[in-house]
């Protein structure tokens, strides 16, 4: 072996470029940090911990928060957050139904989390790798710095520093860019969106980008306002369920579309705004159940 290397050393200067390329490239080494054995041990421990769900996403630990009052719940949330922060590497920030919450991430980025939404990230790794998982809806103000990655059910989002809204519930995925530049990728497709634009997954598979008429309105949920333009009525009742923590009993309202604004301040007002123009009546029952019916002729 040494003899072989000695040959290389002796003949290098006189070799052709091709020979030099062939010889030199053979001695290149990828600057890895883990040996194969260490990597195998790491994988085994991941499997043993049941940490096998998806790529770099660790299992979600549910926080049970009962809504005694908004204040008590927030206090509990802060406490639970602190508890998880201290005792668990995976931090879960949950905004329950009927709540919004705000969190400042370890890198100084700020996130407003809408009702019935969860953010998960690793307390230990976040500073070295800005990466989190979102289910639901949130508005991000990302501090400039290393790549910030958001993983959702249907797509990944990568940014450097910007503010934008992410909506990822059921089979709906939509990102709206307010400032900066955002990379959105799903499957083999990817788009880059700039301020005023949104990227959305249509028909469960196609990633499209388009310009918003009113980008500011997208994140109006942060002020408790929800604006709709010709939106599927079912989607609006879903949002009211999340904002007021109620459950609807709905008639068949497929193929009905609503345009207008509702707020999360007063349930009766919100129901009036939606139901009156849509020709529906409502009845608030016990157990936070709301019955919606077609207006009889």
């Amino acid at each position: 072996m040494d003899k072989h290397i000695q040959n290389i050393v002796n003949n290098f200067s006189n070799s052709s470029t091709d020979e030099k390329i062939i010889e030199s490239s053979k001695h290149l080494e990828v600057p890895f940090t883990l040996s194969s054995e260490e990597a195998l041990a790491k994988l085994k421990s991941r499997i043993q911990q049941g940490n096998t769900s998806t790529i770099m996403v660790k299992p979600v630990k549910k926080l049970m928060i009962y809504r005694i009052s908004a204040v008590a719940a927030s206090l509990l949330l802060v406490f639970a957050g602190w508890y998880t922060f201290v005792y668990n590497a995976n931090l879960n920030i949950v905004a329950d139904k009927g709540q919004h919450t705000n969190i400042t991430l370890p890198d100084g980025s700020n996130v407003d989390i809408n009702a019935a939404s969860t953010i998960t990230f690793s307390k230990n790794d976040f500073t070295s790798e800005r990466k989190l998982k979102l289910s639901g809806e949130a508005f991000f103000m990302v501090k400039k710095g290393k790549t910030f990655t958001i993983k959702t059910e249907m797509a990944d989002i990568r940014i450097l520093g910007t503010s934008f809204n992410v909506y990822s519930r059921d089979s709906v995925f939509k990102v709206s860019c307010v400032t900066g530049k955002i990379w959105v990728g799903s499957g083999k497709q990817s788009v880059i969106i700039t301020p005023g634009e949104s990227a959305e997954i249509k028909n469960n598979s196609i990633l499209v980008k388009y310009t918003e008429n009113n980008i500011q309105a997208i994140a109006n949920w942060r002020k408790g306002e929800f604006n709709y333009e010709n939106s599927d009525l079912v989607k609006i009742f879903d949002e009211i369920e999340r904002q007021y923590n109620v459950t609807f009993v709905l008639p068949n309202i497929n193929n009905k579309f609503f345009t207008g604004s509702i707020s999360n301040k007063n349930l009766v007002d919100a129901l009036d705004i939606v139901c009156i123009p849509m020709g529906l009546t409502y009845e608030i029952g016990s157990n936070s159940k709301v019955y919606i019916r077609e207006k009889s002729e």
Partner: protein
Amino acid sequence: MNLEVKGISQVEFDKVFLQFYGPIRNYIYYKTSDIQLSEDLAQDVFLKIWEKKEDIKPETVKALAYKIANNLVVNRFEHLKVSLKFNKSINTSNVATSPEFELEMKEFDERLQRALNELDEKKRTVFLMNRIDEFTYVQIAETLGVTVKAIEKRMEKALAFLRKRIDKNI
């Protein structure tokens, strides 16, 4: 209990891992030039194989691993510019070298690494799989699911490109 042998056992999995983890990690690195990401994604590749190990035929596991790796990478980095960095694995401590040789070697290496970054992804990946991971053309063709002829072409073009870049820079 079903005694019909199907899939790969835990022992076989370990063997496959130790054999292919390095090349898979390297493969992702050639495409992304991000070593941390390459190690993470290589883990995920084998995690997916682990999860499916009951249904995988041993002879297809290698091609499958490359396919998964390729999917994970394509999903993320279609058009990223790479800036690959390599360590030098040649050990010249036991042989007689001259400072001139050391300098020439170092300069050549820098030139080579710069040229590699400019090489397009397909050719670069094939070239490095052959040079660093020491795969034969046939092995590369099998793992990537293309013909040996295509691999020969890519190698030829890769070498021609590198030669042109390096000679131009002298």
